[in-house]
């Protein structure tokens, strides 16, 4: 890749991953992603973050178009997850940096990942500063956005905030700036990233953004470690407002009906529930779990105030894809949802109680009654499913 000068003497030197769809083993990045790293050419040549290990050689070639990597003095690791610190060990060996800067929690994370021997590690707490020559870097810990080690780096002279995973998006593009791509596509990618990674820490997002805004930092560029860079005050504001909107999780007049099915009975019930929601004027998306990944569902749920979950009873339980989705969803801690459960069964019929229990565990408001149907739904049963959809729609509208 070609380096891109994003500010005078500040270069994007990351890697574009056009091909990886499996993002971190639990979600799909259907449009690929990028691992952004930033090189600051000052009296102390400083690299902010690295890239995922398979891109190491390419990364070094990109840096070499700006400067011989061996001349790097400082490395800042804002976050130690392997997509950003994946080349750290290789770089330390090659560059022999004068210092490696991490947050206090980052030191623990670095030690547990790399088991380093004699690395020149220095901890930077919130408020710590580092002079690079013409520039200073101010460090701000952003614990749990989205790991304990996470921090951001602010360079006031460049009005630049390097935000690590915050504001990231999984988009592999030839463009480097958010204003160069379609805004709807950008927002969809921000939604997917937030909904699958940042969502559980929404309260931390609100607190951290309030603290950052309270610091009155003069920022005209947000440079995340995935996807596109926000430049100009309007786009910086857009990114922050979008995060505040995501974190608020205000219910919207939209629902997702998600299901798995064996002999299409639960599927027919899903369509009937969707009809009931539509009767109440709710916008609906139906998602079959053998066609859509759990992370697609979470992305969709970001813009929904209601969710209906369906599974047949199978061996006294529910189908594994539904079980997997509910486990995944619970961990991401979505808030302010109304929910419904439905499903078909052959002889025992535990499905709806299991689903209801898991939805209630997530503090969703679960509407009554759950609908279960023996073997194949008849017109009466489908009418009950339509009514369930209407009930869910009315419960949603009461929250809007």
């Amino acid at each position, binding site marked *: 890749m070609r380096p891109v000068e994003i500010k005078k003497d500040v270069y994007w030197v990351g890697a574009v991953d056009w091909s990886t769809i499996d993002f971190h083993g639990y979600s799909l990045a259907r449009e690929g992603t990028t691992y952004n790293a930033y090189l600051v050419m000052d009296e102390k040549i400083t690299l902010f973050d690295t890239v995922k290990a398979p891109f190491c050689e390419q990364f070094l070639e990109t840096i070499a178009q700006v400067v011989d990597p061996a001349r790097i003095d400082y490395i800042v690791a804002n976050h130690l997850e392997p997509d950003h610190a994946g080349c750290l060990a290789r770089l330390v060996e090659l560059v022999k940096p004068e210092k490696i800067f991490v947050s206090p*929690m980052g030191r623990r994370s670095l030690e547990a990942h790399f088991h380093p021997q004699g690395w020149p590690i220095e901890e930077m707490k919130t408020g710590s500063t580092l002079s690079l020559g013409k520039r200073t870097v101010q460090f701000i*810990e952003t*614990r*749990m956005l989205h790991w*304990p080690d996470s921090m951001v780096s602010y360079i006031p002279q460049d009005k630049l905030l390097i935000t690590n995973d915050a504001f990231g998006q999984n988009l592999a593009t030839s463009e480097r700036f958010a204003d160069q791509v379609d805004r709807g596509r950008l927002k969809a990618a921000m939604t997917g990233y937030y909904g699958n990674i940042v969502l559980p*820490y929404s*309260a*931390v997002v609100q607190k951290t953004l309030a603290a950052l805004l309270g610091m009155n930092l003069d920022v005209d560029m947000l440079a995340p470690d995935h996807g596109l860079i926000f430049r100009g005050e309007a786009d910086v504001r857009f990114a922050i407002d979008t995060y505040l909107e995501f974190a608020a999780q205000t219910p919207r007049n939209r629902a997702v009906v998600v299901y798995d099915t064996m002999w299409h009975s639960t599927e027919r019930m899903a369509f009937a529930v969707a009809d009931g929601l539509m009767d109440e004027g709710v916008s609906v998306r139906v998602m079959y779990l053998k066609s859509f990944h759990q992370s697609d569902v979470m992305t969709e749920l970001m813009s929904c105030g209601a969710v209906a979950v369906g599974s047949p009873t199978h061996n006294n339980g529910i189908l594994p894809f539904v079980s997997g989705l509910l486990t995944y969803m619970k961990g991401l801690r979505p808030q302010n949802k109304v929910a419904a459960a439905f499903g078909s069964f052959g002889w025992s019929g535990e499905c709806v109680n299991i689903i209801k229990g898991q939805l209630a565990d997530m503090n969703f408001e679960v509407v009554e009654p759950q609908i279960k149907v023996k073997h194949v739904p008849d017109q009466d049963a489908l009418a009950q499913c339509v009514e369930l959809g209407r009930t869910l729609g009315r419960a949603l509208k009461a929250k809007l």
Partner: protein
Amino acid sequence: MDRYVCTVCGYTYDPAQGDPDGGIKPGTAFKDLPDDWTCPVCGASKDQFEKES
């Protein structure tokens, strides 16, 4: 003495262990932690902890 769990990151405060890095001696009950004590993992404040169920 009751253990308390951080609702942000899942860390458990165990009074038997205390929080040596945060200067809290073993045997300190959760209620006796200073008001400005924060989660040693994620920095959450004391009011973001819940009693372990």
